């Protein structure tokens, strides 16, 4: 009994002294993933025909310890995609899906220059946890003006890495020579719906012609989606576009009103 109380007292003292802790080192595996899960959309449509190639920088990062030796990253190009079958009565309801060959996959040598060697391998240098993969995209295929090509890269496990967060393991890149919807311009987005309205290729082209600006992700971030409302210059450019559209629609030789590729009248909010 005496021993039990002595143990109790020792336990209390132990609890008091246990309030301080030592820092622990990370222990775990090494993972590899893309730095961003955001889809990349690249189009040559903003540039003159002199521009036949461009370089995209795609970040890949490791999760885990940084080591003092180079490590191998493996990847593959995905050439299949899910095709969804919708309910005939409810077009938003998916009733089935099949994994089929991509209709417009990007082809190595035609739409982008080969990278990663024969084995589709990249090297993460020693003492680094991130690399930028430079992917050279090409404009030579004229069909890019009608159909964008999809370059989908998936990271694979290697001797050095397991794959990381699932949504960051695949990178989707669209290569195009026609106007593509900027990823930031979503029809459901509050700011976009108030100031830009629905996206269409014809509308986007009209905006570029009216203002001389690209209205791409970078432009929309700086001038439109800047806070609670666009910048003064952004508001001016939107006003200018509306004025130009009024002028266009007032000219009978233009067969007004201006309609988009889907047959809908081009309007701005």
């Amino acid at each position, binding site marked *: *009994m*005496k021993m039990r*109380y002595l143990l*109790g*007292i020792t336990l*209390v003292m132990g609890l*008091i002294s246990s309030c301080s802790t030592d820092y622990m080192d990370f222990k775990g595996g090494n993972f590899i993933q893309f730095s961003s899960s955001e889809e990349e959309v690249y189009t040559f449509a903003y540039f003159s025909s002199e521009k036949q190639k461009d370089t995209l920088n795609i970040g890949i990062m490791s999760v885990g310890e940084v080591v003092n030796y180079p490590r191998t990253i493996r990847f593959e190009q995905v050439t299949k995609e899910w095709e969804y079958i919708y309910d005939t009565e409810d077009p938003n309801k998916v009733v089935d899906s099949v994994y089929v060959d991509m209709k417009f996959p990007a082809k190595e040598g035609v739409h982008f220059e080969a990278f990663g060697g024969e084995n589709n391998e990249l090297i993460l240098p020693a003492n680094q946890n991130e690399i930028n993969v430079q992917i050279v995209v090409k404009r030579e295929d004229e069909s890019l003006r009608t159909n964008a090509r999809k370059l989908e890269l998936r990271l694979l496990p290697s001797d050095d890495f397991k794959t990381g967060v699932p949504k960051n393991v695949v990178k989707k890149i669209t290569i195009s020579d026609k106007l593509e919807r900027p990823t930031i311009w979503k029809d459901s987005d509050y700011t976009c719906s108030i100031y830009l309205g629905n996206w269409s290729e014809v509308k986007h082209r009209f905006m570029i012609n009216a203002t001389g600006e690209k209205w791409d992700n970078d432009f929309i971030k700086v001038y439109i989606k800047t806070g609670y*409302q666009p*910048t*003064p*210059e952004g*508001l*001016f450019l939107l*006003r*200018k576009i509306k*004025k130009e559209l009024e002028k266009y629609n007032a000219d009978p030789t233009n067969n007004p009103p201006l309609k988009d590729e889907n047959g809908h009248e081009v309007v701005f909010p």
Partner: protein
Amino acid sequence: MRNLCLFLLILLPLFCVSCYDDKGNYDYHALNQVEVAGIDSMYTAIFMEQLVITPTIQSEDKERIYDYIWMCYDKNDFEKSIDTLSLEKDLNYTVSLPLSSYQLIFAYRDRETEITKYVYSNLSVESQNSRGWYVLKEKAGTTDIDFFWQGKENTDLLSQVQGKAMEGKPRSLGYIENYTWTNEEENKIETGNKCFFLASEREVSLIRISDMKQMSDFSSLFFENAPVIAPQKWYEGSEESGFINGGKLYTYSSYDGEFGLNKLSYPKDGDYNLSSIFTKNGTMCPLLFDLNSGQFCTSERNVSSISYFENDGMSTYPLAYPDMEPVYAGFLDEGMWVGGKGYVVMRDKRDDSRSIFYFDLACMVNFEDAYLKNRITDIQAVEAGSKLAEATCFGMHRKDQMLYFGVHDKLCYYDLVNKRELEVVRDNGASAIPSGENIVLIKHLIFDYTDYMDPTISDKVNKLAVATSDGNTYKLYLFEISANKLKDKPEVYSGTGIPSEIMYMSPYMKNVYICY
């Protein structure tokens, strides 16, 4: 034994607590009584001049030693970032703070007791130009401005600071409360510049009031495609500010960004040609006149075209007066967001006769039922042969229904209630203006500012400004008004040229205080 062990177990935490070292001091005694003298409640300092304050600390215990600090923060800065001005008891500081109103704080700390006490005061940092009377004038076919304040004169400011006056005769003296300037020399953006908008027949210039530096010219007022320069008038407003150029109205709203980043672009839509004659107070829409249609009209924020009035059941006069044009427009100020009464002197182009149009300007206040309704309440024909029919300049009394006007050296007023004209005399019976002079400008200026957080900070001006000129020189009389008379011994200033507009500038000026 068991109870003993339990007792010890309970006692153990108490032992831990008992290790606390009590550093309390139970030696109670009365604190040293201290008073600070020599610090006023309000200081006005001129930028880059010395501010000297010498407080006296009267302490019961003469041997006490203190540490001192003088601090301040900008009252308009929500973060209230503290600037340290001095660590000495006596403040002798070259004022290098931006022009604004500051809370000035003197703190002293007793080294023995480590008690710090604070004395609060107010500091208004102004420039030589922050407060005073500005006169826009014509001088030998050019435009310049003069400055007067409490006996000080600084004339031909544009010629002095920029090396030349503006080309052409004066058109507009306006005010811009917040102009954002891109300082390309130092590659930085400077916000909050208080500016004059100066327009002559051939030039426009935005001048920063603190140092008379030019911030912008005509073309840089616009995003792109500036129109042909033909400036008429500029007005500021809480909702929308406007610039009449070539008969067209260009507007911007500070809701969409400070002017400078925000610019002018397209004129308001419509087939109109606006007169330069208009009136408004800081908060209501302007009362404008379209010379094409002969109709009174206005401009509303977020409406892309000029807005015309419409008749309703309470309208009693026609909407259009195509054979007439305005000669003068003014209003009776009944406060912000209240339209008040408006008066427009109209000239009939067919026979040169004049009429006075009476307005209920509730029709200019966007939340009133009468908004944009025809509220011409009376049209009073001016008798041929009357002095008013010959008047060459006008000015509205802002508080009483008196329309001042000048005929050569006679300052008169038209009683808008009893519809009769009378000469304005001084309270000693003498004529307001000395015989032989020629009145060219009349304006009643009221500035009534009190800081809502500190009523000791105020700036109040109520003067009738009358300028006379022989074409080469002018005199400016600043009268205090006493009912329908003027008090004798006005402030008098003189300059060269012919005055066209006058403005009182205060360091507390806001765009909502400007009346046109």
